[in-house]
């Protein structure tokens, strides 16, 4: 692995995909408005839940907003990187253009996961950060070095888990050819990440922490923000994230053995 080579290639990716996306300027503007309205909508929904109850699953409204902020950042990352690239895998396999990717003297997973970028997700990331800053103020959280490192660690673990889930489903295309709707199922499950895990019944809580670890994605980082998180939970998240990353890599190499070109 030659790091500077990969960095250089990534710079090229960034340049070309930004240039091609910026062709549709009105599209980006509409996407920006969508991101803002979507955040307003989520907060509106949350405020309905808190209308008469002070707590949901033991969380106050101000605390639940942190989850909303982290969800918005992660959703922005999904829209910027995961969604444009990983839906492309399906196209590569259906049209047989994965051959060209495999022939390139560069890691195929790197190429396929980072080739494209959708700049309209940036606003969502920024909005999420502002919401988090606002939450830090209203919840009177002290910014200390340990808090910052822990939150960076947990959020990056969430990103890794999220990426692996997306990548895992996209990889199954090699067998099933069309997996658009499997991605829709994942999306609707991820929707749950907007709410604290404790607000669900016990069986759903188990489902969302073992089968699809959505619990790890937003709830644990938010607990770090509130200083509620125990050390074992953070360690568990790190372990889950590394297991997911390694498995997704292994699974990709395994799946490639079954790939037979479609075009020729």
């Amino acid at each position, binding site marked *: 692995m030659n790091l500077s080579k990969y960095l250089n290639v990534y710079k090229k990716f960034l340049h070309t995909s930004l240039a091609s996306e910026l062709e549709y300027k*009105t599209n980006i503007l509409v996407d920006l408005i969508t991101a803002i309205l979507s955040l307003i909508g989520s907060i509106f*929904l949350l405020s309905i*839940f808190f*209308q008469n109850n002070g707590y949901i699953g033991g969380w106050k409204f101000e605390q639940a907003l942190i989850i909303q902020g982290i969800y918005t950042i992660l959703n922005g990352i999904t829209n910027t990187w995961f969604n444009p690239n990983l839906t492309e895998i399906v196209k590569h396999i259906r049209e047989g253009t994965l051959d060209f990717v495999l022939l390139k003297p560069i890691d195929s997973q790197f190429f396929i996961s980072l080739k494209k970028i959708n700049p309209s997700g940036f606003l969502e990331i920024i909005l999420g950060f502002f919401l988090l800053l606002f939450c830090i103020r209203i919840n009177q959280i002290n910014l200390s070095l340990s808090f910052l490192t822990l939150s960076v660690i947990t959020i990056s673990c969430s990103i890794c888990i999220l990426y692996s889930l997306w990548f895992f489903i996209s990889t199954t295309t090699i067998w099933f050819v069309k997996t658009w709707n499997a991605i829709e199922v994942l999306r609707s499950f991820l929707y749950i990440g907007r709410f604290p895990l404790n607000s*669900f019944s016990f069986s759903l809580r188990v489902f969302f922490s073992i089968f699809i670890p959505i619990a790890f994605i937003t709830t644990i980082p938010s607990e770090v923000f509130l200083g509620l998180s125990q050390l074992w939970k953070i360690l568990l998240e790190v372990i889950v994230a590394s297991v997911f990353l390694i498995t997704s890599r292994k699974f990709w190499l395994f799946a490639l053995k079954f790939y037979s070109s479609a075009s020729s």
Partner: protein
Amino acid sequence: MIFNLINRKIFTLLKVQYSNMLEYRVEIALWAVSGIIPFFMLNIWTNNNLNESINISDVMLSRYFLCAFFVRQFSVVWVVFSFEEDSLLGKVSPYLIQPLNPFFRYFAQHLAEQITRFPFALIIAFFFFIFNPESIWIPNLGILFLSIVSTFLSFLIQFLIQSIVACLCFWTEKASSIERLLFIPTLFLSGLLAPVVSFPAEVKSWIYLTPFPYLIDFPANLMSGNETNISRGLSMQILWIFLLFPLFKRIWFEGTKKYTAMGS
């Protein structure tokens, strides 16, 4: 004579599209699964006793969300995506020569897909009743008929809105971002995630003038036996169809004049 001809055309279109849809049964099953968000919402409502504040019992609320799931299954529309793809690939040109508005083709596609999806929706409902046996109920025939009609009207409203957006492809090429923008109010204001009764008073004062509550909230309330104003709901649905249809005809007429073929 003319009626007979139209009848035969529609029947053939439906038959062709139905066999086309049957090819992708797994896809459609997955899509049915991706619509289960209302059940997660129900879990939040009942698990936190939020329904006490809006005076709806647990059982009635679970029926409401089950009906919301059903209404959503049979009113979901994706014309914009089909039309955008067809227009970018240049498939619209041959459709335009045929003596049939291409939107009939999409309309038949949607109906065929709903027929294919029906058994999967029933299976999901069956599992829902296993977990919530107390919520089983049999609506009387008149109400059932009215709610099927209003679900169909809701489908028509969404189909018209999306067709209008799809026609914007003639001007902007990519209309799906406008669709995503319109999806936000549909998601948060239609009653899919929370019944409209639970909205704050200042929202309720104007929301019944918009088309959104009639997309899911009204048919779902009707079917589940929750309190709702039947005559107002149905007349508002019909009113919106009468408002949207001329708009669609107008924009289609202007669009085809502007159309320049794409693709090959």
